[in-house]
Protein backbone atom coordinates (compact mmCIF):
# COMPACT_ATOMS: atom_id res chain seq x y z
CA UNK A 1 0.00 0.00 0.00
CA UNK A 2 2.82 2.40 0.90
CA UNK A 3 4.50 1.91 -2.46
CA UNK A 4 1.26 2.47 -4.38
CA UNK A 5 0.27 5.59 -2.43
CA UNK A 6 3.79 6.99 -2.77
CA UNK A 7 3.57 6.52 -6.55
CA UNK A 8 0.20 8.29 -6.61
CA UNK A 9 1.50 11.17 -4.52
CA UNK A 10 4.55 11.57 -6.75
CA UNK A 11 2.33 11.50 -9.84
CA UNK A 12 -0.61 13.63 -8.65
CA UNK A 13 0.40 15.87 -5.74
CA UNK A 14 2.49 18.24 -7.85
CA UNK A 15 5.21 18.48 -5.20
CA UNK A 16 7.91 21.07 -5.57
CA UNK A 17 10.78 18.96 -4.20
CA UNK A 18 12.84 16.09 -5.68
CA UNK A 19 11.24 12.62 -5.35
CA UNK A 20 13.94 11.39 -2.96
CA UNK A 21 12.90 14.01 -0.40
CA UNK A 22 9.48 12.39 0.00
CA UNK A 23 9.09 10.13 3.04
CA UNK A 24 6.02 8.44 4.46
CA UNK A 25 5.71 11.02 7.25
CA UNK A 26 6.64 14.08 5.13
CA UNK A 27 4.17 16.99 5.35
CA UNK A 28 2.77 17.00 1.82
CA UNK A 29 1.37 20.52 2.14
CA UNK A 30 4.78 21.82 3.19
CA UNK A 31 6.24 20.07 0.14
CA UNK A 32 3.97 22.02 -2.15
CA UNK A 33 0.73 20.05 -2.46
CA UNK A 34 -2.22 22.43 -2.94
CA UNK A 35 -5.80 21.88 -1.80
CA UNK A 36 -6.78 21.34 -5.42
CA UNK A 37 -4.10 18.68 -5.87
CA UNK A 38 -5.63 16.75 -2.97
CA UNK A 39 -8.62 16.07 -5.22
CA UNK A 40 -6.31 14.50 -7.85
CA UNK A 41 -4.65 12.40 -5.13
CA UNK A 42 -8.04 11.35 -3.74
CA UNK A 43 -9.42 10.28 -7.12
CA UNK A 44 -6.26 8.28 -7.92
CA UNK A 45 -6.37 6.52 -4.53
CA UNK A 46 -10.07 5.73 -4.90
CA UNK A 47 -9.37 4.23 -8.30
CA UNK A 48 -6.35 2.22 -7.15
CA UNK A 49 -7.87 0.79 -3.96
CA UNK A 50 -11.54 0.66 -4.96
CA UNK A 51 -12.65 2.79 -2.01
CA UNK A 52 -14.64 5.98 -1.68
CA UNK A 53 -13.66 8.77 0.72
CA UNK A 54 -16.53 10.14 2.80
CA UNK A 55 -17.05 13.88 3.30
CA UNK A 56 -15.57 13.49 6.81
CA UNK A 57 -12.30 12.38 5.26
CA UNK A 58 -12.06 15.42 2.99
CA UNK A 59 -9.82 17.51 5.25
CA UNK A 60 -6.15 18.47 5.48
CA UNK A 61 -5.55 15.86 8.20
CA UNK A 62 -6.31 13.06 5.73
CA UNK A 63 -3.95 14.36 3.08
CA UNK A 64 -1.18 15.55 5.41
CA UNK A 65 1.19 12.63 4.70
CA UNK A 66 1.51 9.22 3.08
CA UNK A 67 1.04 7.80 6.59
CA UNK A 68 -2.27 9.58 7.10
CA UNK A 69 -3.48 8.51 3.65
CA UNK A 70 -2.57 4.89 4.45
CA UNK A 71 -4.57 5.09 7.70
CA UNK A 72 -7.66 6.33 5.89
CA UNK A 73 -7.41 3.70 3.14
CA UNK A 74 -6.99 0.98 5.79
CA UNK A 75 -10.05 2.32 7.64
CA UNK A 76 -12.14 2.42 4.45
CA UNK A 77 -11.06 -1.11 3.53
CA UNK A 78 -12.06 -2.37 6.99
CA UNK A 79 -15.46 -0.72 6.66
CA UNK A 80 -15.95 -2.52 3.35
CA UNK A 81 -15.28 -5.94 4.87
CA UNK A 82 -17.17 -5.43 8.15
CA UNK A 83 -20.73 -6.84 8.13
Amino acid at each position, binding site marked *: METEITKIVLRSANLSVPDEELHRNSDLFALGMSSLATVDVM*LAIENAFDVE*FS*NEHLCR*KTFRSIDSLMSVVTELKQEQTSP
Partner: protein
Amino acid sequence: MNAFTGHLSAILAVASKNAAAVDQTGCFPNETLSALRQARLLGSMVPRTMGGDGVSLSAAMETCQALGACCGASGMILAMHQIQIACLVSHAQHHPWHQALLRRIAGEQLLLASVTSEATTGGNLRTSDCAPVLDGERFRISKEAPTVSYASKADVLLVTARRAEDAPRSDQRLIAVLREDAQVEVVGEWDTLGMRGTCSHAVSLRAEGLNCQILEEEFGEIAERTMVPVSHLLWGAVWTGIAGDAEARARAWLRRSMRQNGSTSHPAAYHLTEMSGLLRTMRARLHDATACFEAARGAPEGSPAQAADTNLLKVDLSEAALRVALLAMRVCGMAGYRNGTEFSVGRHLRDLQSAPLMIHNDRIAADTATLLVAQRSAFPRG
Protein backbone atom coordinates in the same frame (compact mmCIF):
# COMPACT_ATOMS: atom_id res chain seq x y z
CA MET B 1 -28.86 57.84 17.55
CA ASN B 2 -26.11 56.09 19.54
CA ALA B 3 -22.46 57.15 19.45
CA PHE B 4 -21.46 54.55 16.85
CA THR B 5 -24.31 55.42 14.49
CA GLY B 6 -23.43 59.08 14.87
CA HIS B 7 -19.76 58.43 14.07
CA LEU B 8 -20.71 56.27 11.10
CA SER B 9 -23.05 58.92 9.70
CA ALA B 10 -20.26 61.50 9.90
CA ILE B 11 -17.82 59.13 8.14
CA LEU B 12 -20.34 58.33 5.42
CA ALA B 13 -20.94 62.03 4.81
CA VAL B 14 -17.21 62.62 4.37
CA ALA B 15 -16.88 59.61 2.06
CA SER B 16 -19.82 60.70 -0.09
CA LYS B 17 -18.55 64.25 -0.36
CA ASN B 18 -15.13 63.11 -1.59
CA ALA B 19 -16.10 60.07 -3.68
CA ALA B 20 -16.26 61.84 -7.04
CA ALA B 21 -12.94 63.63 -6.55
CA VAL B 22 -11.23 60.43 -5.38
CA ASP B 23 -12.54 58.69 -8.49
CA GLN B 24 -11.64 61.48 -10.90
CA THR B 25 -8.13 62.15 -9.62
CA GLY B 26 -7.26 58.65 -8.41
CA CYS B 27 -6.10 60.09 -5.10
CA PHE B 28 -6.24 58.21 -1.81
CA PRO B 29 -9.35 59.11 0.26
CA ASN B 30 -7.35 60.86 3.01
CA GLU B 31 -10.37 62.67 4.46
CA THR B 32 -12.31 59.42 4.87
CA LEU B 33 -9.35 57.71 6.50
CA SER B 34 -9.04 60.62 8.92
CA ALA B 35 -12.73 60.29 9.76
CA LEU B 36 -12.32 56.53 10.31
CA ARG B 37 -9.36 57.21 12.62
CA GLN B 38 -11.24 59.91 14.48
CA ALA B 39 -14.08 57.47 15.12
CA ARG B 40 -11.45 54.87 16.10
CA LEU B 41 -12.87 52.40 13.59
CA LEU B 42 -9.46 51.07 12.46
CA GLY B 43 -9.25 49.10 15.71
CA SER B 44 -12.88 48.02 15.78
CA MET B 45 -12.14 44.32 15.16
CA VAL B 46 -9.26 44.22 17.67
CA PRO B 47 -10.39 42.38 20.84
CA ARG B 48 -11.50 44.53 23.77
CA THR B 49 -8.73 43.06 25.91
CA MET B 50 -6.24 44.70 23.54
CA GLY B 51 -7.91 48.06 23.43
CA GLY B 52 -10.21 47.54 20.45
CA ASP B 53 -13.97 47.26 20.25
CA GLY B 54 -14.06 43.52 19.52
CA VAL B 55 -16.81 43.94 16.94
CA SER B 56 -18.00 40.88 15.06
CA LEU B 57 -17.24 40.16 11.43
CA SER B 58 -20.87 40.78 10.52
CA ALA B 59 -20.74 44.23 12.18
CA ALA B 60 -17.55 45.03 10.26
CA MET B 61 -19.29 43.90 7.07
CA GLU B 62 -22.20 46.26 7.71
CA THR B 63 -19.79 49.17 8.08
CA CYS B 64 -17.96 48.21 4.87
CA GLN B 65 -21.27 47.88 3.04
CA ALA B 66 -22.38 51.34 4.18
CA LEU B 67 -19.02 52.90 3.33
CA GLY B 68 -18.97 51.12 -0.06
CA ALA B 69 -22.36 52.64 -0.86
CA CYS B 70 -20.87 56.11 -0.40
CA CYS B 71 -17.40 55.52 -1.90
CA GLY B 72 -16.44 52.15 -3.34
CA ALA B 73 -12.71 52.72 -2.97
CA SER B 74 -13.06 53.77 0.69
CA GLY B 75 -15.22 50.73 1.42
CA MET B 76 -12.66 48.45 -0.20
CA ILE B 77 -9.78 50.04 1.71
CA LEU B 78 -11.55 49.48 5.03
CA ALA B 79 -12.39 45.91 3.96
CA MET B 80 -8.76 45.16 3.08
CA HIS B 81 -7.61 46.62 6.41
CA GLN B 82 -10.12 44.50 8.34
CA ILE B 83 -9.03 41.33 6.50
CA GLN B 84 -5.49 41.82 7.82
CA ILE B 85 -6.82 42.46 11.35
CA ALA B 86 -8.86 39.25 11.16
CA CYS B 87 -5.72 37.29 10.21
CA LEU B 88 -3.73 38.68 13.13
CA VAL B 89 -6.56 38.18 15.61
CA SER B 90 -7.28 34.60 14.50
CA HIS B 91 -3.72 33.39 14.06
CA ALA B 92 -1.32 35.49 16.12
CA GLN B 93 -3.10 37.24 18.98
CA HIS B 94 -1.51 34.97 21.61
CA HIS B 95 2.00 35.71 20.39
CA PRO B 96 3.53 38.53 22.50
CA TRP B 97 4.90 40.59 19.58
CA HIS B 98 1.68 40.43 17.57
CA GLN B 99 -0.41 41.03 20.67
CA ALA B 100 1.56 44.22 21.24
CA LEU B 101 1.02 45.13 17.58
CA LEU B 102 -2.75 44.67 17.94
CA ARG B 103 -2.66 47.00 20.97
CA ARG B 104 -0.80 49.56 18.87
CA ILE B 105 -3.28 49.20 16.01
CA ALA B 106 -6.17 49.97 18.35
CA GLY B 107 -4.33 52.66 20.30
CA GLU B 108 -2.65 54.48 17.43
CA GLN B 109 -5.27 53.63 14.76
CA LEU B 110 -2.70 52.05 12.44
CA LEU B 111 -3.68 51.16 8.87
CA LEU B 112 -2.80 47.67 7.61
CA ALA B 113 -2.12 46.65 4.02
CA SER B 114 -1.48 43.33 2.33
CA VAL B 115 1.53 42.42 0.16
CA THR B 116 0.59 39.05 -1.31
CA SER B 117 1.13 39.57 -5.04
CA GLU B 118 4.60 39.04 -6.49
CA ALA B 119 6.03 39.85 -9.89
CA THR B 120 7.13 36.26 -10.52
CA THR B 121 3.96 34.58 -9.24
CA GLY B 122 1.29 37.12 -10.26
CA GLY B 123 -1.93 36.95 -8.32
CA ASN B 124 -1.43 33.43 -7.03
CA LEU B 125 -1.96 33.93 -3.31
CA ARG B 126 -0.57 30.51 -2.43
CA THR B 127 2.83 30.88 -4.07
CA SER B 128 5.81 33.01 -3.11
CA ASP B 129 9.34 33.32 -4.43
CA CYS B 130 10.76 35.86 -1.99
CA ALA B 131 11.98 34.57 1.37
CA PRO B 132 13.22 36.19 4.58
CA VAL B 133 16.98 36.11 5.03
CA LEU B 134 17.63 35.31 8.67
CA ASP B 135 20.56 36.84 10.52
CA GLY B 136 20.57 36.00 14.23
CA GLU B 137 17.36 37.36 15.75
CA ARG B 138 16.58 39.51 12.75
CA PHE B 139 15.39 39.04 9.17
CA ARG B 140 15.44 41.11 6.02
CA ILE B 141 13.28 40.66 2.96
CA SER B 142 12.84 42.07 -0.53
CA LYS B 143 9.71 41.69 -2.61
CA GLU B 144 8.64 43.03 -5.98
CA ALA B 145 4.84 43.24 -5.81
CA PRO B 146 2.80 44.21 -8.89
CA THR B 147 -0.28 45.29 -6.91
CA VAL B 148 -0.30 46.61 -3.36
CA SER B 149 -3.26 48.71 -2.30
CA TYR B 150 -2.43 51.98 -0.48
CA ALA B 151 1.10 50.75 0.29
CA SER B 152 2.47 54.24 0.80
CA LYS B 153 -0.30 55.07 3.30
CA ALA B 154 -0.12 51.89 5.37
CA ASP B 155 1.52 51.72 8.80
CA VAL B 156 1.86 47.93 8.80
CA LEU B 157 2.33 45.56 5.86
CA LEU B 158 1.48 41.86 6.02
CA VAL B 159 3.82 40.21 3.54
CA THR B 160 3.66 36.65 2.21
CA ALA B 161 6.96 34.87 1.60
CA ARG B 162 8.47 31.43 1.42
CA ARG B 163 9.31 30.03 4.85
CA ALA B 164 13.01 29.98 3.95
CA GLU B 165 15.18 30.37 0.87
CA ASP B 166 15.32 26.58 0.38
CA ALA B 167 11.59 26.00 1.00
CA PRO B 168 9.09 25.16 -1.77
CA ARG B 169 7.16 28.11 -3.21
CA SER B 170 3.97 26.94 -1.52
CA ASP B 171 5.54 26.61 1.94
CA GLN B 172 4.71 30.16 2.94
CA ARG B 173 4.67 32.34 6.01
CA LEU B 174 3.04 35.69 6.72
CA ILE B 175 5.30 38.46 8.03
CA ALA B 176 4.13 41.60 9.82
CA VAL B 177 6.38 44.46 8.70
CA LEU B 178 6.32 47.88 10.32
CA ARG B 179 6.33 50.83 7.96
CA GLU B 180 9.23 52.42 9.83
CA ASP B 181 11.32 49.30 9.10
CA ALA B 182 10.46 49.26 5.41
CA GLN B 183 11.36 51.08 2.22
CA VAL B 184 8.33 51.20 -0.05
CA GLU B 185 9.09 52.41 -3.54
CA VAL B 186 6.15 52.88 -5.89
CA VAL B 187 7.33 51.58 -9.26
CA GLY B 188 4.12 51.43 -11.31
CA GLU B 189 1.03 53.51 -12.03
CA TRP B 190 -2.52 52.79 -10.90
CA ASP B 191 -4.47 54.39 -13.73
CA THR B 192 -7.52 52.15 -13.82
CA LEU B 193 -11.13 51.98 -14.89
CA GLY B 194 -12.43 51.94 -11.31
CA MET B 195 -11.47 51.55 -7.65
CA ARG B 196 -9.04 54.35 -8.41
CA GLY B 197 -8.74 55.58 -4.82
CA THR B 198 -7.32 52.28 -3.60
CA CYS B 199 -3.99 53.37 -5.13
CA SER B 200 -2.98 49.76 -5.80
CA HIS B 201 0.40 50.53 -7.29
CA ALA B 202 3.25 48.19 -8.14
CA VAL B 203 5.70 48.35 -5.27
CA SER B 204 9.30 47.43 -4.59
CA LEU B 205 9.58 46.52 -0.90
CA ARG B 206 12.72 46.27 1.24
CA ALA B 207 12.11 45.53 4.90
CA GLU B 208 13.61 44.10 8.05
CA GLY B 209 12.53 43.17 11.51
CA LEU B 210 12.70 40.65 14.32
CA ASN B 211 12.23 36.98 13.49
CA CYS B 212 9.27 36.87 15.88
CA GLN B 213 7.35 39.12 13.46
CA ILE B 214 7.05 36.09 11.18
CA LEU B 215 3.78 34.36 12.08
CA GLU B 216 4.44 30.80 13.23
CA GLU B 217 1.40 29.23 11.58
CA GLU B 218 1.62 28.06 7.95
CA PHE B 219 0.23 30.70 5.62
CA GLY B 220 -1.78 27.95 3.88
CA GLU B 221 -3.82 27.53 7.06
CA ILE B 222 -4.20 31.28 7.55
CA ALA B 223 -5.36 31.70 3.95
CA GLU B 224 -7.77 28.80 4.03
CA ARG B 225 -9.23 29.45 7.48
CA THR B 226 -9.33 33.25 7.52
CA MET B 227 -7.85 35.35 4.73
CA VAL B 228 -9.79 33.90 1.80
CA PRO B 229 -13.22 33.49 3.44
CA VAL B 230 -13.04 36.84 5.26
CA SER B 231 -11.90 38.55 2.04
CA HIS B 232 -14.83 37.17 0.13
CA LEU B 233 -17.27 38.18 2.85
CA LEU B 234 -15.93 41.73 3.27
CA TRP B 235 -15.50 42.29 -0.48
CA GLY B 236 -19.02 40.97 -0.97
CA ALA B 237 -20.28 43.46 1.60
CA VAL B 238 -18.58 46.34 -0.23
CA TRP B 239 -19.96 45.23 -3.61
CA THR B 240 -23.44 44.90 -2.11
CA GLY B 241 -23.13 48.45 -0.79
CA ILE B 242 -22.09 49.82 -4.19
CA ALA B 243 -24.85 47.91 -5.97
CA GLY B 244 -27.38 49.01 -3.33
CA ASP B 245 -26.53 52.66 -3.93
CA ALA B 246 -26.85 52.19 -7.70
CA GLU B 247 -30.29 50.67 -7.17
CA ALA B 248 -31.26 53.54 -4.85
CA ARG B 249 -30.27 56.04 -7.54
CA ALA B 250 -32.35 54.16 -10.09
CA ARG B 251 -35.37 54.26 -7.78
CA ALA B 252 -34.87 57.97 -7.16
CA TRP B 253 -34.65 58.60 -10.89
CA LEU B 254 -37.87 56.67 -11.51
CA ARG B 255 -39.69 58.57 -8.76
CA ARG B 256 -38.65 61.88 -10.24
CA SER B 257 -39.55 60.79 -13.73
CA MET B 258 -42.93 59.47 -12.66
CA ARG B 259 -43.70 62.66 -10.71
CA GLN B 260 -42.81 64.80 -13.70
CA ASN B 261 -44.86 62.66 -16.07
CA GLY B 262 -47.75 62.28 -13.66
CA SER B 263 -47.79 58.55 -14.29
CA THR B 264 -46.47 55.47 -12.51
CA SER B 265 -45.83 53.86 -15.83
CA HIS B 266 -42.24 53.94 -17.07
CA PRO B 267 -40.70 51.65 -19.71
CA ALA B 268 -37.60 50.87 -17.58
CA ALA B 269 -39.36 50.45 -14.24
CA TYR B 270 -39.58 46.67 -14.53
CA HIS B 271 -35.78 46.46 -14.13
CA LEU B 272 -36.29 47.41 -10.48
CA THR B 273 -37.76 44.01 -9.71
CA GLU B 274 -34.66 42.19 -10.99
CA MET B 275 -32.35 44.63 -9.19
CA SER B 276 -34.28 44.31 -5.96
CA GLY B 277 -34.32 40.52 -6.23
CA LEU B 278 -30.59 40.38 -6.87
CA LEU B 279 -29.85 42.63 -3.89
CA ARG B 280 -32.06 40.56 -1.60
CA THR B 281 -30.26 37.42 -2.73
CA MET B 282 -26.85 39.05 -2.21
CA ARG B 283 -27.74 40.12 1.33
CA ALA B 284 -29.18 36.71 2.15
CA ARG B 285 -26.09 34.96 0.77
CA LEU B 286 -23.83 37.22 2.84
CA HIS B 287 -25.87 36.57 5.97
CA ASP B 288 -25.86 32.81 5.41
CA ALA B 289 -22.16 32.65 4.52
CA THR B 290 -21.20 34.69 7.59
CA ALA B 291 -23.15 32.32 9.83
CA CYS B 292 -21.45 29.30 8.19
CA PHE B 293 -18.03 30.92 8.59
CA GLU B 294 -18.60 31.69 12.28
CA ALA B 295 -19.91 28.15 12.88
CA ALA B 296 -16.84 26.60 11.21
CA ARG B 297 -14.38 28.67 13.25
CA GLY B 298 -14.41 26.19 16.10
CA ALA B 299 -13.77 23.20 13.85
CA PRO B 300 -10.23 21.81 13.93
CA GLU B 301 -9.84 21.98 10.15
CA GLY B 302 -11.42 23.56 7.10
CA SER B 303 -12.98 21.41 4.39
CA PRO B 304 -13.23 21.51 0.59
CA ALA B 305 -16.98 22.06 1.00
CA GLN B 306 -16.36 25.29 2.93
CA ALA B 307 -13.76 26.39 0.41
CA ALA B 308 -16.21 25.76 -2.43
CA ASP B 309 -18.96 27.71 -0.60
CA THR B 310 -16.79 30.75 -0.02
CA ASN B 311 -15.54 30.67 -3.63
CA LEU B 312 -19.08 30.47 -5.00
CA LEU B 313 -20.07 33.41 -2.80
CA LYS B 314 -17.34 35.56 -4.33
CA VAL B 315 -18.18 34.62 -7.92
CA ASP B 316 -21.94 35.03 -7.49
CA LEU B 317 -21.85 38.32 -5.56
CA SER B 318 -19.36 39.96 -7.92
CA GLU B 319 -21.45 39.07 -10.98
CA ALA B 320 -24.74 40.03 -9.31
CA ALA B 321 -23.43 43.41 -8.15
CA LEU B 322 -22.25 44.21 -11.64
CA ARG B 323 -25.63 43.22 -13.06
CA VAL B 324 -27.41 45.53 -10.60
CA ALA B 325 -25.22 48.49 -11.57
CA LEU B 326 -25.74 47.76 -15.25
CA LEU B 327 -29.51 47.72 -14.79
CA ALA B 328 -29.31 50.97 -12.79
CA MET B 329 -27.58 52.55 -15.77
CA ARG B 330 -30.34 51.23 -18.03
CA VAL B 331 -33.02 52.71 -15.76
CA CYS B 332 -31.35 56.10 -15.28
CA GLY B 333 -30.49 56.47 -18.96
CA MET B 334 -28.48 59.54 -19.86
CA ALA B 335 -28.83 60.92 -16.33
CA GLY B 336 -27.00 57.85 -15.09
CA TYR B 337 -24.49 57.85 -17.93
CA ARG B 338 -23.53 61.48 -17.37
CA ASN B 339 -21.07 62.20 -14.55
CA GLY B 340 -21.90 64.70 -11.84
CA THR B 341 -25.65 64.18 -11.50
CA GLU B 342 -27.40 62.76 -8.47
CA PHE B 343 -28.31 59.78 -10.67
CA SER B 344 -24.81 59.10 -12.06
CA VAL B 345 -23.88 55.43 -11.80
CA GLY B 346 -20.77 55.40 -13.97
CA ARG B 347 -18.47 55.22 -10.93
CA HIS B 348 -20.49 52.36 -9.47
CA LEU B 349 -20.31 50.45 -12.74
CA ARG B 350 -16.58 51.07 -13.16
CA ASP B 351 -15.78 50.20 -9.53
CA LEU B 352 -17.74 46.98 -9.79
CA GLN B 353 -15.92 45.93 -12.96
CA SER B 354 -13.03 45.12 -10.62
CA ALA B 355 -15.14 42.62 -8.65
CA PRO B 356 -14.92 39.64 -11.05
CA LEU B 357 -11.18 40.35 -11.54
CA MET B 358 -10.03 40.50 -7.88
CA ILE B 359 -8.85 36.87 -7.97
CA HIS B 360 -10.30 36.22 -11.41
CA ASN B 361 -13.73 34.60 -11.41
CA ASP B 362 -12.73 32.26 -14.24
CA ARG B 363 -9.85 30.89 -12.16
CA ILE B 364 -12.03 30.60 -9.06
CA ALA B 365 -14.79 28.85 -11.01
CA ALA B 366 -12.35 26.28 -12.42
CA ASP B 367 -10.86 25.58 -8.97
CA THR B 368 -14.30 25.42 -7.39
CA ALA B 369 -15.47 22.88 -9.95
CA THR B 370 -12.57 20.63 -8.89
CA LEU B 371 -13.49 21.05 -5.21
CA LEU B 372 -17.14 20.30 -5.95
CA VAL B 373 -16.21 17.06 -7.73
CA ALA B 374 -14.74 15.80 -4.46
CA GLN B 375 -17.94 16.34 -2.49
CA ARG B 376 -20.18 13.38 -1.76
CA SER B 377 -23.93 13.17 -1.51
CA ALA B 378 -25.31 13.33 1.99
CA PHE B 379 -27.75 10.54 1.11
CA PRO B 380 -27.11 6.90 0.23
CA ARG B 381 -27.27 6.00 -3.45
CA GLY B 382 -29.27 3.05 -4.69
